[in-house]
């Protein structure tokens, strides 16, 4: 590996730290929703995709079944597969390296990489590996801290953790609401999920909104 330019290193580190620190919120809400510390840490180590992990915790926390939790989380994980399609021809790795690359293919590593690529293809590759590894390290450390902290706290509601989870989801969706149609879809999904909660089994009102998204996407 050749020398890493300072802009790539700085971008990777700052993204790793800020995103990683948010692992505290995940660890804490996982435990607050009934997951053990070990399960919370395994989700961060093995699933390693923030939105999917929060979805598992959110659906189970709302009383949903394991199947609807897995389905919701997996639909959110599809985009990582598409990032993989984008990154594979740039990284050109195989064997064990491809397995590692796949595991750290997430929003942040892809975004930093594509940003750094404007400088050179090499900077793009450095950005991917540095950001992926950095987020992985900090995300897992902070998950453990959050899980242990929440375990010590007791009643999650007294600490506002039951609001931290929806606030985190809101923070994840906010930057995606670019066009008018995006905002309409968000409002329709909110209304649908609330209206269907007393009617459908827990978890289904969430996953059913994926079909609203598909209808929106195919219509235009």
């Amino acid at each position, binding site marked *: 590996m050749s020398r890493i330019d300072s802009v790539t290193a700085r971008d990777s580190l700052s993204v790793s730290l*800020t995103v990683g620190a948010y692992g505290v919120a995940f660890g804490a809400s996982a435990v607050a929703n009934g*997951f053990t510390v070990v399960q919370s840490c*395994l989700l961060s180590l*093995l*699933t390693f*995709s923030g*939105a999917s992990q*929060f979805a598992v915790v*959110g*659906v*189970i926390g*709302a009383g949903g*079944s*394991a199947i609807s939790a*897995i389905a919701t989380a*997996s*639909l959110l*994980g*599809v*985009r990582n597969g598409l*990032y*993989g*399609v984008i990154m*594979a*021809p740039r990284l050109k790795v195989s064997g064990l390296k*491809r*397995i590692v690359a*796949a*595991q750290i293919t997430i929003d942040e590593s892809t975004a930093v990489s594509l940003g750094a690529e404007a400088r050179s293809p090499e900077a793009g590759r450095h950005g991917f590996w540095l950001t992926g590894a950095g987020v992985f390290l900090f995300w897992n450390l902070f998950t453990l801290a959050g899980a242990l902290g929440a375990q010590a706290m007791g009643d999650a*509601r007294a*600490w506002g953790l039951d*609001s*931290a*989870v*929806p*606030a985190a*989801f*809101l*923070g*994840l*969706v*906010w930057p995606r*609401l670019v066009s008018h149609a995006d905002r309409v879809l*968000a*409002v329709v*999904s*909110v209304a*649908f*999920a*609330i209206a269907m*909660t*007393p009617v459908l089994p827990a978890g289904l009102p969430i996953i059913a*909104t*994926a079909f*609203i*998204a*598909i209808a*929106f*996407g*195919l219509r235009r």
Partner: protein
Amino acid sequence: MNAFWIATIGTSVIAFALKFSGHSMPQHWLENPKLQRVNALIPIALLSALVAVQTFTSQSKVMIDHRLAGLSVAIIALFLKAPFPVVVLSAAATSAAIYNWL
């Protein structure tokens, strides 16, 4: 094995399978614009639904409580372009204050 373990392991296996299959797939799969649009819209729908369910429901019942105050503060923070941790922390602090003192 309880639901927590099934969810933990099932999600992890599928998450990795999705990532790895992306790395092993021919690139022209991504070129369909409708597929790209749906891919951008699905997270919006799911995350919005999760916000709604986590804020307004409890045990399959619609409910307005301290969480709405927390979410309102999060929305204000996002309008003010606050960084992510500020959004989450301000929501938690507001919600905790109302839960404990009202």
